[in-house]
């Protein structure tokens, strides 16, 4: 099993960041390469820019701990997958940690790079109210 964590510091209070992260249907607003994200009966359906879909079961939305957990359930069939977004207060700012566990490991590097982009997108959205990352690759920050 592979596990990785990307982190980013966002210049906003944690509850403000958590409000965006906890709104599962808003993920496409800050995750580059996601064209749509809808939630029904605890299942989030992601439409990807490559023309495919990802189905994710939302495992927990813990408002007290500010932690969001999900697992990819299809159409890809991993032996194990866990995605977790954790928001923590850091001074006047927030630290967001995006961890994924995956087995088999083939998608590890692609997910790591994409979630690095996503954290930058989240930072843009929260700090500026706009999302401008488009398809730009991560330049190292947060990756």
């Amino acid at each position, binding site marked *: 099993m*592979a596990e990785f964590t990307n982190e980013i510091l966002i210049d906003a209070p944690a509850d403000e960041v958590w409000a965006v992260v906890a709104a599962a249907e808003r993920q496409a607003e800050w*995750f*580059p*390469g*996601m064209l749509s994200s809808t939630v029904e009966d605890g299942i989030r359906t992601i439409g*990807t*820019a*490559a*023309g*495919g879909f*990802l189905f994710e079961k939302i495992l927990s939305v813990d408002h007290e701990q500010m932690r969001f957990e999900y697992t990819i359930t299809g*159409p*890809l*069939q*991993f*032996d194990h997958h866990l995605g977790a977004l954790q928001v923590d207060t850091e001074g006047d700012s927030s630290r967001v940690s995006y961890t994924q566990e995956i087995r*088999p*490991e*083939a*998608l*590890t*590097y*692609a997910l*790591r*790079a*994409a979630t690095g*982009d996503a954290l930058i997108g989240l930072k843009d959205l929260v700090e500026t109210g706009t999302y401008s990352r488009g*398809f730009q*690759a991560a330049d190292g920050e947060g*990756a």
Partner: protein
Amino acid sequence: MGRKILFVTTDQQRYDALGCNGGVVARTPVVDALAANGIRYERAHPQNVVCMPSRATMLTGQHIRNHGVWMNGVPLPAEAPTVAGLLHDSGYRTGLFGKAHFEPFLDPFLRFPENRMGVSGATHDEAGPHRGFERMEFAGHGAAGLVHYGSWLRDNHPEHMAGYFPVLDMTLEVNHEGGGDTGAPQVKHNTVPRGIYHTDWVADRAISWLDGLDSAEDWFCWLSFPDPHHPWNPPQSELHRVPWRDLDLPEGYPEDASERERLLDSKPAHWRRWYDGDLVSNYEAPARWVPATLTADQVREVNAMVHIQNELVDEALGRVLSAIDARGWDDDLDVIYTTDHGEFQGDFGLLFKGPYHVDSLMRLPLVWRPAPSSTGQPAVVSEPVGLMDLAPTFCSIAGLDVPSWMDGVPLPLSGADAANSGRSGVITEWDSLHPNGTEVHLQSIVADQMLCTRYEAGTCHEGTEGELYDLTEDPLQRVNLWDDPAMGATRHDLVGALDETLPERPAILLPAEAAV
């Protein structure tokens, strides 16, 4: 008006695939004729034995450590200088048709421009040439993938999408399932008609682009066939060409299991560990496939499929050359034919590729037919040359100075030219950091008819291991001389030459952004 350049690459093709190199199964009259009228290189080596690093070297003329693409999944930096860019800036029209793979294939969120072009159908970047190419139309290893061919097949022949073998499984690992008559991995009888198989589609797209050029223009066309890389699924209408049951086993395949295992045990530990299914060190072979299960009939069937795919490539190249001739360009046409790396095809009981530096993966076909209007004469060059010499050769053909950022030098025109050039050997290197924690690092040099590989410490090796083969006496690399006291001086000299030639590793490795 200057010389036109047709750069032809296949993917994962062995040196012995071609008739001109001694191949006796696949009929390759087109490239054989190019060799007869040009220069055939007997020791052409890649600087890495997987696609992305090797292709980055072709495009930049640089060592792996200088362009930074150390493994599949590491994108060539957007700002990397390219020979296509140089040629374009000097007035050449530039196009690439087929497999590029300068950026990762595994890209669900479309992070990379090549994949966005493939999905959208765009054939050029609005911002200007992409990596120096003004037109790009991509094909991969089948119907899937973010490439123009896949989109075209889906839009025009959706009934044939499922004819291709799915290269990846539902976990995105390389698919270990098999098919055909023997259940060999990545083999399938493909219902796609020959005329719309990707090999012919690539030729068609190149011909279409060339047809649109003005006769007076100079051009650089990279004709990049995805075959004979797995999956091994040529159109089933062509299977009659090479009946697998009639095929002799390849010389490199020891049919006796104990002999195979003895040979593997004489090499560093990762050879046998992979064979036994005890090690996954890289993504390029199916993680769930155990080489020890490979049967002699499966070796025959895989080889038959590859030979068929090689024949189709040769015929498609013939169509492109005929189209060029019809335009009256042949007298000024340089054709260079090669591949990015080799394939085991049963050698040592293995298939696919990985951190194994032997001729199966490292000795490549390379033929240069200089423009008949130039001074080039037919020749055979036995001195080692590298794929990093290609970009400087293109500069030379176009009359451009070779820029200082290129590490290679123009290919020699003859054996005498090679002997006079002071070449000291060719380097091939491998670094892999698998997400499962496995690390493998090795570097090789081919010089003076010797192949020397040095291993660095990793999760499979202590850093003291090595391989040393006499390529004249031991063409199948079965006798490892690394620990032979009588070869100590040779080993010392070759490791010294390796250290002297190999650039420093970059302080910061570029991140892998996908598995492939």
